């Protein structure tokens, strides 16, 4: 199955995302440069990887969200193409308006890198259906701007429609509602701060991230 990873200047988890995709599909993903204007038609799943696109200058994800390739990504996502944004990828998707809310500086002001325990707030999405809803999973976080914010109305709306997918058990960044990951209304665009691609190999210390890739790839 053909997948793709979008590469921005100073993406730095692009290779990790590619390894995760290849591990789960047996096929190397397309690496799409941000200046390309279209995503090839054979691509069935896109990862917007972590990193520090444009050095996180101005606001994390803000400049990358204006890249040429994002226009096509938006259109294809509206037509149903599944997209996973991880960490900086999540920031880019919110900045591009593909997901609601915004990611602000961590409440503690510091970069935080640790294993975070997550609760499945919605185990019924195309990205999470292989998880046991009662189960808690361990996935590393590594970010400076992971403090999820949405205004009260938006928050009520996404909570009400099951768009909150992951919650921190022990909130590392001040996110409202302990939110670690959300999905769009149509259920095909997921953004999350934790890094599932860093938890797919027993040597990483755990494989709790694998089911996200298996779930979504299995749904295609």
């Amino acid at each position: 199955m053909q997948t793709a990873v979008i590469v921005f200047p100073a993406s730095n988890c692009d290779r990790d995302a590619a390894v995760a995709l290849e591990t789960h599909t047996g096929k190397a993903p397309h690496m799409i440069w941000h200046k390309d204007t279209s995503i090839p038609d054979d691509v069935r799943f896109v990862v917007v990887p972590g990193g520090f696109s444009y050095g996180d200058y101005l606001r994390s994800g803000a400049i990358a969200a204006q890249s040429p390739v994002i226009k096509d990504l938006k259109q294809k996502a509206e037509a149903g193409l599944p997209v996973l944004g991880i960490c900086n990828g999540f920031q880019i998707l919110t900045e591009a308006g593909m997901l609601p809310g915004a990611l602000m500086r961590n409440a503690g002001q510091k970069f935080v890198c640790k294993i975070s325990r997550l609760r499945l707030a919605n185990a019924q999405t195309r990205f999470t259906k292989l998880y046991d809803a009662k189960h808690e999973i361990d996935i590393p976080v590594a970010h400076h701007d992971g403090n999820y914010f949405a205004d009260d109305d938006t928050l009520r709306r996404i909570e009400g429609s099951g768009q909150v997918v992951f919650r921190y058990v022990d909130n590392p960044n001040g996110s409202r509602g302990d939110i670690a990951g959300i999905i769009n209304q149509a259920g095909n665009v997921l953004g999350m701060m934790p890094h599932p691609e860093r938890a797919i190999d027993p040597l990483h210390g755990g494989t709790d991230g694998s089911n996200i890739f298996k779930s979504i790839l299995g749904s295609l």
Partner: protein
Amino acid sequence: MAGTSKSDDITLDVIAEHGISGAEYKIILDRLGREPNLTELGIFSVMWSEHCSYKSSRRHLGKFLTTGKRVIQGPGENAGVIDIDDGDAIIFKMESHNHPSYIEPYQGAATGVGGIMRDVFTMGARPIALLNALRFGEPDHPKTKSLVDGVIAGIGGYGNCVGVPTVGGETNFHAGYNGNILVNAMCVGLARADNVFYSAAKGVGNPIFYVGSKTGRDGIHGATMASAEFDDDSEEKRPTVQVGDPFTEKLLIEACLELMATDAIIAIQDMGAAGLTSSSIEMADKGGVGVALNLDKVPQRETGMTAYEMMLSESQERMLMVIQPGKEQLAFDVFEKWGLDVAEIGTTTKTGRLVLTHGGKTVCDIPIAPLADDAPNLNRPHTPTAPRDVIEPSDIIEPQDYNDALVRVMTDPDMTSKRWIWEQYDRHVMADTMDSSQSGGDAAIIRIHGTNKAIAVTTDCTPRYCYADPYEGGKQVVAESWRNLTAVGADPIAITDCLNFGNPERPEIMGQFVGCIDGMNEACRAFEYPVVSGNVSLYNETNGVAIPPTPAVGGVGLIPDLSLIKTLKGAKAGDTLIMIGE
């Protein structure tokens, strides 16, 4: 600072300001056959500074064991190179950024990390791990908190952004560093053994390319600052500090590695201390060629820069390379794709001279060989450290309350958890970190991407031992490094070092320096654990008080099979504890 002035501006004061002694000035006059102009004097001054010429330390560093069956390149290049089988090579080095970090902790530490990464990817390696060795003053000293906060944030800010995991390090607090902290950063990279890049500019008539950020007036005289001690006025006199741009560094890494996969590069060198001066002269000297540069072509951030300023600027994130004729367009295409400034600024020549033109005029024309060959190589007097009284175990009074003693030991700032530090570093990016600071193991473990083998890395030093007895302390530093690697299942291969000491003009400090080197070297030889790269930082003192002698070392070992990894994970209640050794 004036530009390319006439030689009658070279007064005794100007010569002294440039740290050039009377004897050194005589050599310059002799080699040039005339008086130098200010630009030329500036170039001699930085090339002959402690920082670039290692004038106090060179003869002693020469004693180190630097060869071994896995050594591909020992000291003398940007970093050391070792063989880890299957055509893979590890390239690594450690460097200090002590003085800048004291003045501007965030940017000082950040640019320290940036600089050491450039040393490693310059040689063709993708950086795969960062480590550090930090020394701060007492926790309740008024400056300590903000220094610690700034340094840790700066290390994380740069490494995290570039996307290289910071996997280990060490941190100690001691009154001896109240006025002079130590920030030593180490970078480890992975390359193919048959695709390592060196700095010798071979061949005549080849184009010289400048790549990276534009040149500004940053850090002019930084190299001479690193070679003079602090006093209370330093904070007033301080020159501008450089600001790091990790975003550009990341682009530079990707662009250089992309071009290195072709055959376009003949030689490459990063512009570190003394930027354009030392990079061009080192490349020319090693290649046995001359260099002609047109400074009008240097990408500039500010207007009206003089030749002097351009040659001495320490702007970060810049590289100099000699390109294969005919491959110029390829080089332009790659660097422009990554959005970097790039310019062809000169050519290699057969004159053996450094010739600079600016505004249509020749502003410097000096022979290159003397800059290296005639660099001072001092034999500074050194008095051995007097032996301290031996403390017998029986001299120590037994604690009344062992619980209290344990609490005191465990709450010592050196002993407490460093979680608050390493949680600010991305330890997992690149997804090959098998073990890092988090587990509290003796060394961090990084898998070689896509293989079943790994390397183990560690930084170590116990200054208190070196202070008590430099020779024994030096031995211990290397032995600790060796033990930390073996303890995780690795075969130790080689070390890099960063020798932090006080003012070498004082015989007792030179005594510590020589004692530590001799001790380290003895251990290196006993273990066949060679030194392949390193850095010396002298003049670490404030108001005449030196830091404790701190020869930090960074060790690298190979774990040929991932199943051989030993970590602290998996220990359970009821397991048997065994103590080995005396």
